[in-house]
């Protein structure tokens, strides 16, 4: 049971800055996901918390102890690695017992801890086997078991599902969710997969180039991304962005570009007016676009040519070329017959539009519909009976 407090964490390799000014407070039992593309510093941050990398600046506190200079073994943490990192020369039982034996825990207690973890993870029949005799999913369960038996203050996960195939990954994701209810422990999970981040995290930290882009609950990130990067990273299929010039006309803001003309009420986007004469990106999620004409003042319309259709069985996704820019429209009836090359119109509610400042690195200017208070779950889940 522990909080993790990271204050202004820095990591540099010579002149290269890997992580810059990373600050985060993780509550007891909270499950935080660090997500971002390769090289964004998320794994480095996790390894600094584990003590596997020295930190260049800042402080890391686990519980009420600053652990900056403590060895990994003294931080009371457990870690699951991408490639499982099981001790190949030991049986599964010895793998599970290794950490406890190092801490001179009596054998009877070790046996009880192994039996408990093996029951939770359904790995009892595997205890006598060697790691290389196990499948990827079984190895990952053993790696989880190695963490559980230790009963540490913090679980660290370094892309633990990346080596599994898509089906197994989805299954392990569910098992992880169930596991965290059975064994509630403060957890930090690193992934580059936004679906894992959205489904597992109480809170998500989006990182890019060593900098935190946004911290929030999955819904906050989805509904109110802080900048274009977060907007493009969270959500699948990714958000559409249309590059437009901004002009103010009384209480209307006109956004135009070759083949595109949008008029938005200024009161819905009060900060957009200051970009007059400049450029903005309008973001629309593919799920929020519908085929057809706009049906009122609270909708915008985009006309274009149908370029490609993707049939997914439960829906179709189409690519429409609007002016010179391609946008995706999702959630289309799979039985609808659409001819590529035909002229088509899509519409979206102004509520669902996101506007980003093209000059200020894509910072968010506003969202059509502000988040309603209390619409986002922030409380931690209840504990399941073991």
């Amino acid at each position, binding site marked *: 049971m522990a909080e993790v407090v990271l204050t202004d964490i820095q990591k540099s390799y010579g002149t290269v800055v890997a992580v810059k000014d990373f600050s985060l407070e993780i509550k007891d039992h909270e499950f935080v996901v660090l997500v971002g593309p390769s090289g964004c510093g998320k794994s480095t941050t996790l390894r600094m918390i*584990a*003590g*596997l990398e020295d930190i260049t600046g800042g402080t890391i506190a686990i519980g009420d102890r600053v652990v900056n200079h403590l*060895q*990994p*073994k003294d*931080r009371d*943490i*457990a*870690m699951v*690695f*991408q*490639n499982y*990192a*099981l*001790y*190949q*020369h030991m049986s599964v039982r010895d793998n599970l017992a*290794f*950490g406890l034996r*190092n*801490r001179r825990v009596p054998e009877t207690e070790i046996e009880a801890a192994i039996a408990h973890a093996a029951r939770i993870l359904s790995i009892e029949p595997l205890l006598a086997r060697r790691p290389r005799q196990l499948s990827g999913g079984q190895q990952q369960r053993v790696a989880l078991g*190695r963490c559980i038996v*230790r009963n540490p203050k913090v679980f660290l996960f370094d892309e633990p599902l990346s080596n599994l195939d898509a089906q197994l990954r989805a299954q392990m994701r569910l098992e992880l969710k169930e596991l965290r209810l059975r064994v509630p422990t403060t957890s930090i999970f690193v992934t580059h997969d936004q679906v894992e981040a959205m489904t597992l995290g109480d809170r998500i930290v989006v990182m890019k180039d060593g900098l935190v882009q946004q911290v929030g609950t999955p819904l906050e990130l989805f509904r109110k991304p802080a900048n274009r990067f977060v907007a493009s990273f969270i959500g699948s299929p990714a958000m559409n962005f249309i590059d437009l010039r901004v002009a103010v006309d009384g209480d209307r803001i006109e956004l135009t570009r070759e083949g595109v003309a949008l008029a938005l009420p200024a009161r819905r986007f009060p900060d957009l007016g200051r970009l007059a004469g400049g450029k903005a990106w309008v973001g629309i999620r593919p799920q929020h676009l519908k085929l057809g004409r706009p049906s009122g003042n609270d909708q915008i319309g985009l006309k274009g040519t149908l370029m490609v259709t993707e049939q997914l069985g439960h829906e179709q996704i189409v690519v429409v070329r609007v002016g010179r820019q391609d946008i995706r429209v999702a959630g289309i009836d799979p039985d609808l017959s659409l001819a590529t090359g035909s002229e088509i119109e899509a519409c979206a509610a102004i509520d669902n539009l996101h506007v980003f400042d093209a000059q200020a690195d894509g910072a968010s200017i506003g969202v059509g519909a502000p988040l309603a208070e209390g619409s986002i779950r922030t409380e931690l889940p209840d504990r399941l009976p073991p």
Partner: protein
Amino acid sequence: MSAVAPAQAGSHGFFAMLAPGGRRALFILAAIAVCLLFAFPIFWLVLTSLRPGSGVYYVHRGTEFTIENFHEVLSQPVVLKALWNSFAISTLATIMSLGVTVTSGYMLSRFKGPIPNTWFSLIYVFRCVPYVSWVLPLYFVTLKLGIFDTYWGLLLPHVAVHICFFSWIMKGFFDGIDPSMEYAAMIDGCSRWGAFVRVALPSAIPGLTALAILCWLYTWNEFLFALILTSHETPILTVVMAQFVHELGMEWHLMSATAVLALGPALIVTLFGQKYVIRGLKV
């Protein structure tokens, strides 16, 4: 390229024409041919060692066989002493070399910074120097240190050569072992050294065994260092063997008998370790 392609296509066509049984027969024949090629000199050596001195030039025609040659060489104290010395020096050199090579290879594989870089460069430079050119300076060094014609006088140069050659191989073995296992061990309660000893080292055992065997055989068969750096006090088998060629002629029968004696331990070590060598070199 264009000249190679039709030739490849032709050979492929030839094998494709053969029935599967024919292909297997051809493969077995080729394997037997290769085995004979390597086994024949050993067969001839054993045959020569069993012939009397007068019959060594007519090995293929003679009918007279004897084990007198073995009696004769084994009755010479210098041969017995050389057998023991070669065995002891090979074993000690292997133990000492592995002790250094394992840690050196591990450092080269896992750590970065000025110390590993300097060590790497040093080894590289020594590897670039031809082996033969070390011998004469080493002779003077051993004389100066007063270890000429002693175990240390031969052990230290051997260990030095092994460190240069085998640190690279050991680095390769450790490169093939996932470092996250050691990180997991460090989180599980081990120190950095503990993670090396308890996790990395046991995982490298196939590689280590392969290296130990190669190291032992290399020292056992080595001739040049033994010839220059030892004399009457510390006779070495490879040198003693060569001394059957002298101004009065060449005693092939005795030399062969000694060579067969030398073959024994090497054969045992190889048979014992061949699966480790193959597994280790595959890492």
